[in-house]
């Protein structure tokens, strides 16, 4: 089974897209607000200018000599402050007739060109103190007197920009706060939304650890179908496994009886016929045995919920061995912590340990010792006997490395082929060594885990 790596994280993706969308939205909102505010400020600014102009025009009158007089001077303080940028001028083509005190000049100069137009004009220019100014200009005519003059009222543009900048700053602060609020909301929502998913993984882990055999949690409607499908799959898987095992067992029974009968009938036949039949029967026997054993194994690879208690298994197997080898008076002992678990199928563990221990008992003189150690996720099982052992060269031959489910190799008659197959299926390892007891030592490493409940061994 090869599984591709996870493609990104749902959480990360959601966070990124939400963050991107809300930032764009916030920036657009900010731009619109600034634009609106700017327009508003400019309008207010212009109103001040227009008010001043109206005030000036209202104060202007011609005397008998057609000389322009100002009935009163504007009292707005900012127009008196020197170089405040708030200026006004009344002028004609020849000279500047009046100007605000803020211009503070004995020799008045026109701030701008003559506008020979009677409509109100908005202009922008650089004033005497180098300030950017915004101004309105208008030509006021008195047709009855056949005379006219120009009025200019200006104010500093900085006044507008300052306000806008200030507003922008405040807006930025407020919107950043909003953005933070969004982020927190997203986090909280993600947490809430992801909770069923993490509960899902916990439930699946529980199945893997053998604490449950289906997903039994409340899920939101979006995950409802997935839960159902997974549970069906689990049920289906174990049903298929059970069925194929039952069929294998049935086939075994169906084949073995006739083989047995034929074999035991051989002594009644003439020797030459008997020999031929015997050879063929041995092949048939070998095939049924190895292939059925493998058929049982192959079915157990994909089981999700598989964890079995090693100590329980060993105690049952040793109970059986003691009976089967009663006449030999062997001492069979094992040491294993009660929570040592094998991450795999019970049948496979039974066959694996059963065959190795059976082999050890066959050769042992007095004792067989088994030691089990669970280290993190690795189960190490040592099985030693005090029999004659196997010579170094033959040891290498007993298991060829990397050999898996090979149909061409004949069984050794010791069940060691099936042992090799099981170890390979679980990515474990098996090695033979010379035991300190004098005989053969077998060391197995297998995927292990801790059994939390005592009743999962069955």
């Amino acid at each position, binding site marked *: 089974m090869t599984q591709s790596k996870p493609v990104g994280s749902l959480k990360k993706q959601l966070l990124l897209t939400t963050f991107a969308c809300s930032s764009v939205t916030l920036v657009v909102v900010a731009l619109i607000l600034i634009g609106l505010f700017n327009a508003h400020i400019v309008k207010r600014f212009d109103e001040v200018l227009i008010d001043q102009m109206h005030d000036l025009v209202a104060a202007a009158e011609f005397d008998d000599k057609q000389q322009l007089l100002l009935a009163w001077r504007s009292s707005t303080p900012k127009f008196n402050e020197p170089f405040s940028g708030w200026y006004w001028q009344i002028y004609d083509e020849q000279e500047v007739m009046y100007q605000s005190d803020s211009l503070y000049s004995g020799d008045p100069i026109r701030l701008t060109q003559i506008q020979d137009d009677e409509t109100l004009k908005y202009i922008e220019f650089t004033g005497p103190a180098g300030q950017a100014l915004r101004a309105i200009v208008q030509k006021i005519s008195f047709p009855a007197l056949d005379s006219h003059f120009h009025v200019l009222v200006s104010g500093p543009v900085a006044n507008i920009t300052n306000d806008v900048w200030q507003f922008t700053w405040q807006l930025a602060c407020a919107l950043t706060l909003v953005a933070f609020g969004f982020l927190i909301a997203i986090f909280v929502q993600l947490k809430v939304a992801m909770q069923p998913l993490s509960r899902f993984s916990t439930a699946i882990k529980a199945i893997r650890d053998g604490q449950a055999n289906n997903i039994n949690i409340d899920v939101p409607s979006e995950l409802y179908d997935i839960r159902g499908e997974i549970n069906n799959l689990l049920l289906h898987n174990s049903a298929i496994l059970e069925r194929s095992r039952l069929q294998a*067992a049935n086939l*075994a*029974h169906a*084949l*073995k*009886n006739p*083989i*047995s*009968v034929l*074999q*035991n*009938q051989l*002594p009644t036949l003439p020797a030459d016929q008997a020999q031929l039949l015997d050879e063929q*029967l041995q092949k048939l*026997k070998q095939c049924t*045995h190895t292939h059925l054993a493998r058929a*049982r194994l192959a079915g157990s690879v994909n089981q999700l919920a598989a964890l079995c208690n090693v100590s329980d298994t060993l105690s*049952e*197997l040793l*109970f*059986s061995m003691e*009976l*089967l080898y*009663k*006449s030999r008076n062997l001492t069979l002992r094992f040491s294993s912590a009660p929570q040592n678990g094998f991450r795999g199928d*019970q*049948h496979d563990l*039974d*066959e694996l*340990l*059963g*065959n190795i221990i059976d082999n050890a008992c066959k050769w042992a003189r007095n004792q067989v010792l088994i030691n089990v150690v669970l280290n993190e996720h690795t189960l190490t099982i040592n099985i030693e006997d005090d029999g004659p052992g196997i010579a170094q060269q033959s040891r290498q031959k007993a298991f060829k490395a990397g050999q898996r489910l090979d149909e061409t190799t004949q069984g050794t008659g010791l069940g060691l082929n099936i042992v090799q197959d099981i170890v390979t299926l679980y990515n474990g390892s098996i090695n033979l060594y010379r035991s300190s007891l004098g005989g053969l030592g077998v060391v197995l490493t297998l995927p292990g885990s801790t059994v939390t409940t005592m009743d999962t061994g069955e």
Partner: protein
Amino acid sequence: MRALVVEDDQQAAQQISDALNKHGFAVDVSHDGNDAWFIGDTEEYDIAILDLGLPGRDGLSVLTDWRRGGNKMPVLVLTARDTWREKVNGLRAGADDYLIKPFEMEELLARVEALVRRAHGHASSVIACGSLELDTASQRATLYGRHLDLSALEYRLLAYMINRVGQVVSKATLTEHLYQMDFEHNSNVIEVLVNRVRKKLGTEHIQTRRGQGYVINDAE
């Protein structure tokens, strides 16, 4: 010695029964689980050979019920069920040995032999009673090292009794253990048989306890 063979396959049952017969056993055959349970519980056997896949009733439940009822006869399970889990279950249910099909008849006989011996506390296949020795593996009896020529039934009688040295064995018990079920019971037959064996052994080995039965001892 009397054996019960429980096997649903007629031909297999016949083979086993023939082999055991040759080996000095009186054999009853049952092909059905219910029937096997009943006769196993009501008749006296020295060993039962039990198949597990049976019509009527599974061999395991037959075995469990025998044991639950206090039946202690040695039981050898002979089956095609070859996984270790099935072995463990069979032995837990009370089997004394477990042999997997296909099997060699010699292997079966050797194991039956060992079980019967073990049931009577003998470690070796040679059982001695004074100058009389019986080798249950080769089915030979010797007196002072001299081979005794015994018929199958005579050997069976001797084998049964030598496993119970010093115990009084009634005629009825002997009838039960020496003959198959379909045998017409008649106590004269036992007397005749015992007399034939006595002739070959010398009268001192087997003594008659009037009204009780016979007892074998080492005659020293």
